[in-house]
């Protein structure tokens, strides 16, 4: 097919910045530090770097090459590209995921984008600074903003500024996407990305220069870095059962070691049991016998105590043998590099046959890595450590994207000098990062509607606006406990992403093949592409992806399937969300069927001429 292309990138730097913009998002500044802290601290970097080398780079090169390959044959959408490569209309259905995934992810990502804007505005107008040093108040503010307390809360009229931010973000995204590749996405990324990096450096400088917490001098920047980067070794104690008939009084647990009070890393407790997790480093060499004394109070006023024995520190190898750490690291690489979504496939389809992809791809990955490791790894956790301490950050729920970004950090900015300005700057940079990412999520569908249905840009943008608006309203409405967001995120950004990534490596490595694939990668390359890459793409990456997928699915999938069950004769939000996803898939199957008809006609016309 040799359809005339109407759109293209305007400059080499523009493509790189757009791809970096697509990749850099909330995941770099909030998800990465949280995942590292939850999965062994500095040890997390071992699976992270391995995943980058054996999945990240091979998959990035495959996706760039597949996109350029399809683009030079007249296709910019994943269905069109897959149909062209596989030589059958069924290929278009396989590629459908590369359109549906980014579009559905956009439907909830825009809510997070609006939340960043809302928080940036909140710091400017004083709404958030006035909450002061109160984690609970900030958490309440955040939950009210997204309507986490009840379904439909966002539309109840109680929080119109957040709704205005959501409308504003939608308008910004669609007006930019309407302007097209070079005049919209490229120009915006060329302005936003440098601005984002400058904002991040200003915030980083502020965090580095923060003095230690006067009440807790060990809560300083260097120790905060240590909390993020030290290879973590922890010790646990046995679970202590509270005597029958008694109930544990919250926050009454104290630990001592040979008469000296010690601060545990984490106390996991409920009304009837306590388990303590200890930081290995702090007590290294102090307690040779690993004996600790624990005291606690019960609600009936009794002071109880016990002696407990901590386990030996967990070895580095034991931490690394935990499959969950590898799953988390691989997932982060995917998220971080925007791989397996179909975004790069569409972006690179606007390149010419002899445009370099090898160096551009590496440059984009390095730019993203810089934002993630250097900026993301040094801002959120050290800042939160100084003001909130180790105990707060040791609770996994406090270092998730929401907990860290929208509860812990606003509280941190509220406590630091000139915090309102730095809080605004931080959330504004998150907002910019989110816009550059969300733009890339819209383009794959625009490409399909334009080339598959022959719609004009105006019509395709309008149709996409209607579809995504329905999705966003659905997710924003079923906001209680983030149920709809969580379900759609799970199936799209966790489940299907692995499947689509595996399909891409197989198509590039086995359908295009070893020789042709390598030639395709080398075409226009401005660096030498190592030959081993085809071994990685053909064997190692698919096997690694499959292994990680099975491990991950075994651990998490049953819970999400169970969540779909109806209760009291009413469908659960998870069930409704799945139904919504299926509805979207059906709609896109129809679009792809119509596109196939159109492409067949074009093929026939071409054959005749």
């Amino acid at each position, binding site marked *: 097919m040799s359809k005339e*292309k*109407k*759109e*293209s*990138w*305007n*400059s*080499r*730097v523009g*493509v*790189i910045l757009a791809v970096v913009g697509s990749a850099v998002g909330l995941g770099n500044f909030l998800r990465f530090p949280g995942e590292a802290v939850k999965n062994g*601290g*500095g*040890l997390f*970097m071992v699976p992270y*770097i391995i995943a980058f080398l054996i999945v990240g780079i091979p998959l990035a090169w495959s996706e760039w090459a597949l996109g350029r390959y399809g683009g030079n044959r007249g296709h910019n959408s994943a269905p069109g590209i897959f149909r062209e490569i596989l030589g059958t209309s069924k290929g278009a259905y396989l590629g459908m995921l590369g359109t549906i995934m980014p579009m559905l992810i956009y439907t909830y990502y825009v809510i997070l984008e609006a939340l960043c804007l809302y928080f940036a505005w909140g710091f400017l107008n004083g709404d958030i600074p006035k909450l002061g040093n109160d984690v609970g108040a900030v958490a309440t503010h955040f939950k009210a903003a997204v309507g986490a307390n009840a379904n439909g809360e966002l539309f109840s009229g109680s929080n119109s500024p957040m709704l205005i931010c959501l409308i504003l973000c939608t308008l910004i995204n669609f007006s930019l996407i*309407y*302007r*097209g*590749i*070079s*005049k919209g996405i490229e120009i915006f990324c060329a302005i936003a990305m440098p601005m984002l990096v400058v904002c991040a450096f200003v915030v980083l400088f502020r965090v580095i220069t923060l003095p230690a917490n006067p009440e807790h001098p060990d809560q300083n920047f*260097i*120790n905060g*870095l*240590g909390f993020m*980067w*030290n*290879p973590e070794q922890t010790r646990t104690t046995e679970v202590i059962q509270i005597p029958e008939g008694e109930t544990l009084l919250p926050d009454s647990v104290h630990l001592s070691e040979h008469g000296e009070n010690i601060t545990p890393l984490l106390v996991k407790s409920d009304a009837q049991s306590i388990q303590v997790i200890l930081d290995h*480093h702090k007590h290294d060499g102090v307690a040779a016998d690993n004996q600790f004394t624990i005291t606690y109070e019960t609600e009936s006023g009794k002071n109880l105590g016990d002696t407990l024995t901590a386990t030996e520190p967990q070895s580095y190898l034991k931490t690394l043998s935990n499959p969950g750490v590898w799953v988390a690291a691989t997932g982060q690489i995917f998220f971080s590099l925007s791989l397996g979504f179909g975004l790069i496939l569409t972006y690179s389809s606007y*390149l*010419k046959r*002899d*445009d*370099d992809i090898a*160096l*551009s791809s*590496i*440059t984009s990955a*390095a*730019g993203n*890595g*810089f934002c993630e*490791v*250097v900026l993301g*790894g040094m801002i959120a956790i050290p800042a939160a450590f100084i003001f909130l301490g180790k105990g707060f950050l040791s609770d996994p729920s406090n270092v998730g994207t929401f907990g860290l970004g929208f509860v812990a950090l606003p509280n941190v900015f509220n406590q630091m000098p000139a915090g309102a300005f730095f809080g605004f700057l931080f959330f504004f940079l998150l907002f910019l990062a989110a816009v550059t990412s969300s733009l890339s999520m819209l383009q794959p569908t625009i490409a399909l509607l334009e080339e598959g249905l022959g719609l*004009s*840009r*105006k*019509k395709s943008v309008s149709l996409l606006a209607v579809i995504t608006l329905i999705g966003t309203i659905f997710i924003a409405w079923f906001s209680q406990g983030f149920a709809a967001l969580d379900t759609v995120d799970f199936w799209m950004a966790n489940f299907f992403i692995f499947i689509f990534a595996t399909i891409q490596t197989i198509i590039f490595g086995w359908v295009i093949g070893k020789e042709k694939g390598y030639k395709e990668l080398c075409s*226009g390359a*401005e*660096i030498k592409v190592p030959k081993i890459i085809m071994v990685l793409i053909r064997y190692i990456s698919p096997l690694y992806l499959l292994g990680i997928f099975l491990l991950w699915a075994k651990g998490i999938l049953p819970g999400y399937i169970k969540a779909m069950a109806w209760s009291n004769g009413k469908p659960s939000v998870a069930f409704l969300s799945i139904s919504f996803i299926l509805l979207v898939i059906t709609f896109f199957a129809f679009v792809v069927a119509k596109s196939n008809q159109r492409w067949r006609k074009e093929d026939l016309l071409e054959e005749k001429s």
Partner: protein
Amino acid sequence: MTVAGWMVMGFTVIGVISLLSWSIWKVISTPNSTEHLHGTMDIDPEDD
């Protein structure tokens, strides 16, 4: 912060900065690199 922590952070940060610096240097120093790309092809949003 432990010695191991400094080493992990140093290795990762220096690695990423080196890769980025090398990539940018290659992009800038490759002759006619940007000419590989198309010239501006105006997009007409009113293309119906």
